[in-house]
C-alpha cells in the first residue's frame, strides 16, 4: 500500500516537474536568446560596426570609434600613393575624405580615382579606425582589412556649355565696343 502510494507520488512528482520544466523551458530559451543577442550586440557595438559609418560621424565621435573595426564607404579621390608594400588612398563619402592605409594588393581593383575628369570607384572599406594613429604621426585614418568595390567609377565627358560660349561672344562684342569708344575718347 505504502509502495503504491510512493509510486503514485513519484509519478505525480515527475508529471509536476515535467509540467514545470515545460513552463520553465521557454523562459530559459528566452533568456538564452536574450543573452546571445546581448552578447552579439555588445560585440558589434563595441568592436565592430557592420553598417557603414559616415565620415562626419567618425570625425565627430572619434574617441568612441577609436580602435574599433568600422565599415566606411566612399569615392576614391586623388592619387593612390604607394608606400612600399602599402598604399594611402583617400576616400570621400560626400561629406569629408578620410585617409585609408591599406595593403598595396587591395588597391589593385581600383581603376578610377576622383578628379575633375573622373568619377572615382566607390569602395567599401572594412578596417580599424584611429582617432590619432600613432603609426602615422597622429593622422585620423582607417587601417583597411578588406576593400570591396561597390560600383565602378567612370570618365566624365565634358560637353561644351553652349550658354557660356554664347556669353563669351556677347561679352567680346561689348569689350570691342568699349575699347573702340575709349580709343575715340582718348583721341
Amino acid at each position, binding site marked *: 500500500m505504502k509502495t503504491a502510494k510512493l509510486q503514485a507520488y513519484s509519478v505525480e512528482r515527475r508529471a509536476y516537474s515535467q509540467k514545470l520544466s515545460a513552463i520553465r523551458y521557454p523562459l530559459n530559451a528566452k533568456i538564452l536568446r536574450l543573452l546571445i543577442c546581448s552578447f552579439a550586440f555588445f560585440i558589434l557595438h563595441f568592436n565592430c560596426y557592420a553598417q557603414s559609418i559616415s565620415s562626419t560621424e567618425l570625425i565627430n565621435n572619434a*574617441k568612441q570609434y577609436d580602435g574599433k573595426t568600422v565599415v566606411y564607404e566612399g569615392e576614391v*579621390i586623388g592619387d593612390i*600613393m604607394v608606400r612600399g608594400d602599402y598604399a594611402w588612398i583617400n576616400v570621400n563619402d560626400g561629406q569629408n575624405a578620410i585617409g585609408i592605409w591599406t595593403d598595396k594588393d587591395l588597391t589593385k581593383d581600383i581603376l578610377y580615382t576622383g*578628379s*575633375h575628369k573622373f568619377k572615382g570607384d566607390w569602395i567599401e572599406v572594412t578596417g580599424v579606425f584611429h582617432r590619432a594613429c600613432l603609426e602615422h604621426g*597622429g593622422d585620423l585614418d582607417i587601417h583597411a582589412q578588406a576593400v570591396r568595390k561597390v560600383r565602378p567609377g567612370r570618365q566624365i565627358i565634358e560637353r561644351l*556649355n553652349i550658354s557660356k560660349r554664347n556669353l*563669351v561672344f556677347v561679352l567680346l562684342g561689348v569689350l570691342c565696343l*568699349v575699347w573702340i569708344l*575709349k580709343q575715340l575718347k582718348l583721341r
Partner: protein
Amino acid sequence: MILKPRLEDIKIIGYYLGKIILGLGLTMLIPIIIGLAFGEINPVLDFLIGIEIALIFGLILIKLCFTPPLRAGAGFTERDLNWMQGMIVVSLSWLAATVLGAIPLYLSGHWKSYLDACFDAMSGFATTGLVLVQDLDHLSYTHNLWRHLIMFIGGQGIVIVALSFFVRGVSGSFKMYVGEARDEKILPNVIHTARFIWLVSVVYLILGTFALGTVGVLNGMKPINAFFHGACVFMAAFDTGGFAPQSQNILYYHSLPFEIITIIIMLLGAINFKMHYHLWMGNRREIFKNIETKTLFITIVITFCITAFGLTQIGSYPKAIVLFRKGFYQLISGHTGTGFMTIYARQFINEWNQLALVGVICAMAFGGAVCSTTGAIKMLRIGIIFKALLEDIKRIIMPENAVVIQKLHPIKEIFLEDKQVRSALLITLAYLVLYGLGAIIGMLFGYPFLNSLFESTSAAANVGLSCGITDVNMPATLKFTYIFQMWAGRLEFMSIFTLIGFLVAVIKGRR
C-alpha cells in the same frame, strides 16, 4: 567741417582703379593657359567670361574718369596721387578684385552662391584660407590654380602686381604701396621694391615647387599631380594663405617630409622681405639681431608651450612625433598666418582642450613680420610694445634724473620713440577690437565664445584655421562679417578708415 570730395578726386580714384582692374583681369590669362594645356573647355570659358567682364569694367572706368590735358601738360588723372586717393584706390581695388575674381569661381558650379564665391575670393586675396567651396576634390586644374594664384597675387599685394607690371611711372605709387600695409621700402624706388619682392617670390616658387613636387613623386603621386600640387601648395604656404588643392588640406599627403617643407616655406613667408634682401646679400647675422625674428622665436616658444601643455593635459597626442605633427604644425600654421591643417576642423573642438585652443588663438593673433605676407598684429609691434614696457619699468626703478633709452633693431639700430609706440598700440588695439567684434557677432548666432573667438581671430588675422564654424550653411551675416574682417585685417585698417571717411564726406561734406 568736412569738405565734400571734388569731382577731380573721384576721377583720379576711378582712373587708377580702372588700371588696377585691367591688370587683375590680365592675370586671368594664366589659368586660361593652364586650362588649355589640360584640355578643360568649360573652365576656360569661365575665365574668358571673367577676363572680359574685368576688362570691360576697367576700360569703362578709365574712359569715364580720364581727363585729357587742356594744354601741353598731363590731365589731372595723370597727376600724382595724394594720400587719401592712394588709400581709397587700394581699399576699392581689393573689393573690386574680390567681386571680379569670384566670377570664374562661381561659374564653375562648385560654390553654392555668389556670396560664397566672393567669400573664397576675399579669403584668397587676403591670404586667409577659410573656404566655402563644395566638392573641392573634383575641381578643375584651371580653377584650382586660380584659387592659389589669387593668394600669390594677394600676398604680394594686388596693387604691387599692378605697380610692377601694368602701371608705369606713377609717382604716387608709394601711397598705394603703404595702403597695402607695406610701409618699408627695401630699395629706394617703390617699383624696384615691388619687383624685388616678385624676384624673391618667383625664385622661391621654383625651388619650393621642385622640393614639394619631388616629395610628392616619392610619396607615390603621379608626377603631373605632384608638381601641380607642389606649385599650388607653395603659393599657399609662402604667401601664408592656406588653401590646398584637396579637401583634406595637408592631411591629404600623409607625409612628414611634406609637412616639414611646408613649415620651412611658411616661416620664409612670415619673414620681412627686407630680411630676405639682407639674407640674399649674404648678411646672415641680421637674422639673429633683428627684433622681429627674435620676437617671432620667443612667441612661437611661448605659444607652443601653452598648446603642448594643454594637449598633454588631455593626452590627445601621446607621442612626441604626434605632438609635433599635430600640435606644433597647427600652431606654426596659425602663427605664420597660413592656416594649413593636418587635422579636421571639428577635432579642434572635440579633441583639444581650451588651453590648447588659447595657445593657437594667441599665435594667430600675433602673426608674422611686417612687410611680409602675414596678417595680424605682427612681430615688430609686439616687440615695440614690449620694449616700451621695459623702458617704463626702468624709468620707475632708476633714479629720476637718469636718462632711459631703449633701442631696437628692425634691420638697423634705432631709438624707440613715443610716436612708434603710439602707432604700434593703436594698430594692436584695432586688431583686438576686430577680433572681439567678430567673436561677439559669432556668439549672437549662438556659437560658443571660444569657437567664435577662434574663427574670428582666424579671419581677421588672415590665418584660415577653422574650428568648424566656417561652413556653407553659416548665416550670410557671418559670411559678410568674416569678409569684412579679412579685408580690414589684410589692409591694416588705414585704407578702410580712409574709405569710410571719404564716404562720410561724400554724404555729409560741404562744398
